[in-house]
C-alpha cells in the first residue's frame, strides 16, 4: 500500500499546482490507496470443489482533482483523476482532465467549506483506528483466513452427533449435501484530502474485516447464515463458518407456511436488507431533491411508529464503518434520521445540501423551509465509494451511510420480543428486497430464504423451509406497525453495499406472507 506520508505529499503538491493555475477558482484534491483482499469460499461435499475458491485482491491508488474553472460563460466544475501515479506529471494530467471535463452546473454553489461551528470531537482519535495486521497482510495470511472459515464450518458439522445420526453414520454425513459458501473480505484504505477552503491536508486510515457465510445441508433443504464484521484481524477466528453450520443444522425439518397475514419478528439480516434497499435510499438528500423518497415532504413529520429511532454514526470508536473524515474533508458524526418515529434529518453530501438549500421547490420537497432547518441537512456522508474496495480517488462524492443504528424506546430482549409476538413467524434471512413500484411508492417484495422459524406460545418451535414464502408489503405500513425492537444489535454488511447496519430484531404486525414454489416438493 502507498504510505499516508506519500499520499499527503502528493495532495499538498497537487493543491499547490492547481492553485497556481490562473483559471482555477477553487480546487479539491484527494489521494487514496485502497485494497480489497478477498477469499471467496465454496465447499460442497457432493460436488468436486476447492474450498477457498478465489484468493484475490483489487488494489488501486491515485489522485483525483475537483476544480472550479473560470471562463467567459461563467464557472465550470470539472473532475479528473490519474490511477497508479502520484507524480507531478500525473497531477498535471489529472488537472488537465478536470479542465477538459468541466461543465456549467448552474446548481453548483461551491466546493465544501469548513463547518461554521467546529465539532467538539477530535477526528485525530480515529485516524489511528486501523489494524497493522490487516495493513501488512501477506498472501499466505489472506488464504489462511479463508481456510479458517471452511475448517470451522466443517468442524461444527463433524462434531454434531445428531447430524451423524440423521445421516446414518459419521461416514455418511457428506451424503446430506454439506455446502459452505461465502467470503472473507479485508479492507484497508488510506486517504489524504485538501482544498482551497481547507488547505491543511487531512488524512484518514482504516481497516476492517467482514465475512458472510452460508452453510447448507442441501438434501434437507436446510440453510443457515453466519456473519462477522470486525475492525481487527486478531478478533476473527472463523466464527462466521461455525455459526452458519449451526444455523444450517437448526433448519433441518423445515415446515411450509400457509399464505396469510402474520405478526413477524424480522431478524438482523432482514432489518438490514430493508434498510439498505428501501429506507436508507429514501433518507438521502438526493432522493428528496429528485422527488423519489418514500418520505417526500415529511421532514419533522411522523413517518414511523414512535417506537423507532434510526441514526447514522460515522465517528463512533471501534465501529466497523467509522471514518475520521468524509471524502470531502468534512467531519463525520451522528446524523439523526428518524427519532421516535419523526423524520428528523437526511444523509447528505455538500453538493446535495447546497442544492436543496437553494432549491425554489425545497420547501415542498422537504416539508420544511430548508433555510430554517439546515441542521437536518448537515453533509456528514459525502463519500467516494466504489465496488472495487470502498474509498477511491477516482469517483466524485456521493451519499452513503456509515454505521446505521436502529433502536427502540423499550429495552426488549429477544425473549421478550417473542413473548409480544406470541404466535407468528421469525424471519431471519430474506433475499432480493426491491421496491417493485419505485422507491417513492414504498411497495416491496422479497423471499424468505433461511434462518426462519415458527413462533408458538412466545417460543421458537420449528424451522421454516427456505424459499417457500414471499413477503409483500409497503415500507410505510411496516414502519408504522412496529411492536417492539430488541436492545441487542449486530453489524451486518449486505452483499454489494458499503454501509454497516447495526441491526436489532424488530417485531411487526400485519405482514403479508404468500406460500410459493409448491412445485418444488415434487422436483
Amino acid at each position: 500500500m502507498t504510505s499516508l506520508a506519500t499520499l499527503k505529499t502528493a495532495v499538498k503538491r497537487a493543491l499547490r499546482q492547481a492553485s497556481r493555475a490562473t483559471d482555477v477558482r477553487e480546487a479539491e484534491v484527494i489521494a487514496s490507496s485502497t485494497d480489497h483482499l478477498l477469499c471467496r469460499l465454496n465447499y460442497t461435499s457432493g460436488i468436486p470443489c476447492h474450498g477457498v475458491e478465489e484468493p484475490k485482491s483489487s488494489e488501486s491508488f491515485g489522485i483525483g482533482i475537483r476544480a472550479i474553472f473560470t471562463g467567459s460563460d461563467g464557472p465550470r466544475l470539472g473532475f479528473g483523476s490519474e490511477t497508479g501515479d502520484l507524480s507531478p506529471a500525473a497531477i498535471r494530467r489529472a488537472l488537465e482532465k478536470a479542465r477538459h471535463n468541466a461543465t456549467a452546473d448552474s446548481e453548483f454553489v461551491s466546493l465544501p467549506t469548513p463547518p461554521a461551528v467546529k465539532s467538539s470531537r477530535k477526528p485525530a482519535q480515529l485516524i489511528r483506528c486501523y489494524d497493522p495486521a490487516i495493513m501488512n497482510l501477506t498472501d499466505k495470511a489472506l488464504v489462511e483466513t479463508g481456510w479458517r472459515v471452511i475448517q470451522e464450518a466443517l468442524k461444527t458439522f463433524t462434531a454434531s452427533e445428531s447430524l451423524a445420526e440423521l445421516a446414518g453414520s459419521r461416514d455418511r454425513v457428506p451424503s446430506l449435501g454439506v455446502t459452505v459458501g461465502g467470503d472473507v473480505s479485508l479492507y484497508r484504505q488510506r486517504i489524504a484530502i485538501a482544498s482551497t477552503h481547507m488547505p491543511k491536508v487531512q488524512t484518514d486510515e482504516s481497516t476492517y474485516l467482514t465475512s458472510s457465510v452460508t452453510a447448507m445441508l442441501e438434501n434437507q433443504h436446510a440453510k443457515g447464515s453466519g456473519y462477522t464484521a470486525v475492525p481487527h484481524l486478531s478478533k476473527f477466528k472463523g466464527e462466521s463458518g461455525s455459526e452458519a453450520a449451526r444455523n444450517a443444522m437448526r433448519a433441518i425439518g423445515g415446515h411450509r407456511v400457509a399464505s396469510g397475514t402474520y405478526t413477524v419478528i424480522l431478524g438482523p439480516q432482514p432489518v438490514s436488507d430493508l434498510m439498505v434497499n428501501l429506507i436508507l435510499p429514501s433518507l438521502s438528500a438526493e432522493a428528496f431533491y429528485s422527488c423519489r423518497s418514500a418520505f417526500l415532504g415529511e421532514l419533522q413529520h411522523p413517518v414511523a411508529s414512535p417506537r423507532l429511532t434510526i441514526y447514522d454514526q460515522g465517528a463512533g470508536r471501534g465501529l466497523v464503518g467509522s471514518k475520521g473524515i468524509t471524502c470531502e474533508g468534512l467531519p463525520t458524526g451522528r446524523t439523526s434520521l428518524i427519532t421516535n418515529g419523526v423524520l428528523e434529518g437526511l444523509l447528505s453530501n455538500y453538493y446535495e445540501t447546497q442544492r436543496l438549500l437553494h432549491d425554489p421547490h425545497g420547501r415542498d420537497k422537504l416539508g420544511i423551509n430548508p433555510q430554517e432547518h439546515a441542521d437536518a441537512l448537515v453533509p456528514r456522508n459525502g463519500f467516494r465509494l466504489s465496488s472495487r474496495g470502498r474509498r477511491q480517488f477516482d469517483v466524485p462524492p456521493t451519499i452513503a451511510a456509515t454505521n446505521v443504528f436502529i433502536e427502540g424506546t423499550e429495552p426488549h430482549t429477544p425473549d421478550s420480543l417473542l413473548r409480544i409476538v406470541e404466535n407468528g413467524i421469525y424471519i431471519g434471512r430474506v433475499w432480493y428486497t426491491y421496491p417493485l413500484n419505485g422507491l417513492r411508492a414504498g411497495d416491496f417484495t422479497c423471499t424468505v430464504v433461511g434462518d426462519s422459524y415458527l413462533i408458538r406460545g412466545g417460543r421458537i418451535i420449528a424451522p421454516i423451509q427456505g424459499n417457500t414464502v414471499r413477503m409483500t408489503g409497503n415500507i410505510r405500513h411496516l414502519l408504522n406497525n412496529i411492536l417492539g425492537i430488541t436492545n441487542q444489535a449486530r453489524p451486518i454488511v449486505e452483499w454489494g453495499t458499503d454501509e454497516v447496519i447495526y441491526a436489532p430484531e424488530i417485531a411487526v404486525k400485519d405482514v403479508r406472507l404468500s406460500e410459493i414454489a409448491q412445485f418444488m416438493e415434487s422436483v
Partner: protein
Amino acid sequence: MTRLRAAKSLTVESLDKAKRVAVDLLRETRRRQKDCRYVDLRIEIAESKSACAENGVEKAAQEDYLFSFGIRVLAGDRLPSPGYYGRRLSSADLPHLTTILRDGFKHAYDRAIANARGKEHTKKQFKILGESLTGLTLAPIEVRQDTIKAECSVDPRSVPLSEVSRQTVDVSRAVKSLGARIKFNAISTSTGLSRELFTSSEGALIDQSFATTLGFCWVVAENDTAEQALYDYIGHQRGWEVITEGTRNPLIRHLDLLTFATSLGRDCLRLLDAPPLRATDKEVVVITDPHYNALLAHEIIGHPTELDRVLKMETAYAGRSWLFQDLNRNQIGRQIASPLVTAYSDPGLPGLGHYIYDHEGTPARKVIHIDKGIFTGFMNSRQTAAILGAEPNGSYKATEASMVPLIRMSNTVFAAGPHNPERIIADVDHGYYLVGHRIPSIAESRENFSISAQKVYEIRNGQVGQLYRDGGMTADTKDYLMNVDAMGTDFRLTPIPNCGKGQPLQTKRLGNGGPTIRSRARLIGR
C-alpha cells in the same frame, strides 16, 4: 484538445506494446515457478466518454481511459489450486509493465501455492468431508490466436466530449419541456472503445475490441393524486450513432435517445392518470411484450443456467438454481416448460451480449437451455465444464480485466414462436397485457418470480383497453413456463446494462430478449 491529448497518453493502440510484453512474460513465468500448472493474463485498455444532465442542466462529463490487468495461476503439487491478482494501472506504468506483471504473477502464484497447502491440510484433517476437495482442472479447449475488431459507424473516439454533453443536455431539456407534471429527469450517455488481450500458458492469444454506446433516461412525474417514476435504456455494441440515430437491426430496434426519452416521459404522464392495478389471488391470462420478456428471460432462464451458481458457488450471494440439486438429482433431460418454449444463450447474436471469445479464450457458442420444453444445459467455464464433463461453451466473463471472471449471460433469450402477436391478444376473452419490464424480485433458486411492468392493459374480448399503473405479475417459474400457450414471431433483443453478480459485485452489460408470450400468473399491484 491538444492539451487533453497530452494528458491522455494512453490509447487502445498502446495495447500493442503490452501484447509483446505479456506473451514473453507468460512463457518465462510458467517455466520458472515450481508446480505452476497454468497461467493466464488479461490486459484491457478502454477509452470512454460520458455525460449526464438533470432537468435540462448539465451535471457532469468525463473523458478518460482505463488500463488494468488480471492474472490467474493454477499451482500446487498434489492438489493444484487457483490464485488471482488484479490491478488498475496508469499510463506511466506502460514502460514498466514487465516489472508490474512479474510482481502480479508472484502474488497470484503465492496465493495459489498457499491455497494448495491449505486444501491438502484440510483434506487430511477432515478425511470424509475432505474427499470432495480436489485439484483444479480446466476442460480442454481449442487454443486460438485471433484478432477481433470493433464495429461502429461513428467511432466513440471521434465524438468530442462537448458534443456528448450537448446532446445529453438537449434530451434532458426536451423531457423537461413535456410539462410541469414532470418533476425530475436524469439523462446519461456513454460511448467507448475497449480492447482486451487474453493470453495463456497454453499459447492462446486473443485480441478483441468492442465499441459500446448506452443512453439512459429516468423520469419522475407527479400530479395531485399520483406519482410515477420510470427508467429505461437504449444501447448496442456500436458507436455514437446509437444515441443520434437509434438502432434498426432486425433483432434490435430502438429509437434515438431524444425520441426514446420523450416517449418514456409521455408514458409517465399517461400513467399518472391511470388507476393502480389491483393484485389478484388467482391466476389470470397474462400476455407479456418482448421488452418485459427480456427481463423475464434474464431472471428465470439466464441466471439459473449459469453453472457456477448451479454448482453452489454463489450460494451466499446471487443464489443457486432449482434446476440442479446435485449431480444425481437435477432437471437435465426433463420437461420444465410447454413444448412451445425454447430458450438459449447466444453470444453470436448482436447487441450488448455479443462476443467471439470469452475471458479464458474459449470460442463462444450458442447454448440451448430449453429445447421445446425440455431442459438441456448450462452456460459454463472451463473449470465448471470439467466438473460436469461438458464441453466449454465460452461463458466466462469479467466486467474488467482486474476482476476474476464469472459465468455470465451473453444474449439469453426465449426463442421466437409461431404465433402472430396480434392474434395472441385477439384470442383472449379476458386477460392482461404487460408492457415493458420495471423491477424484479426473484426467489433465491429462481423457482418463483415477481416482476413489475411499466404499463399494464386490461384485455376484454380480444381488445386492449384500460391502462393501469404500478402492476406486474408473479408466478412459480415452472408453472409459468408449463402454462405458456403462445409464443410470438416478434422476437426482439433488449439491452440489460446492469446485471450484478459476484463478490465483489461486478456489474455487466448483456442482452436479453424474446417474443410476445402468453401464459398464466397472478397479478401484483397496489
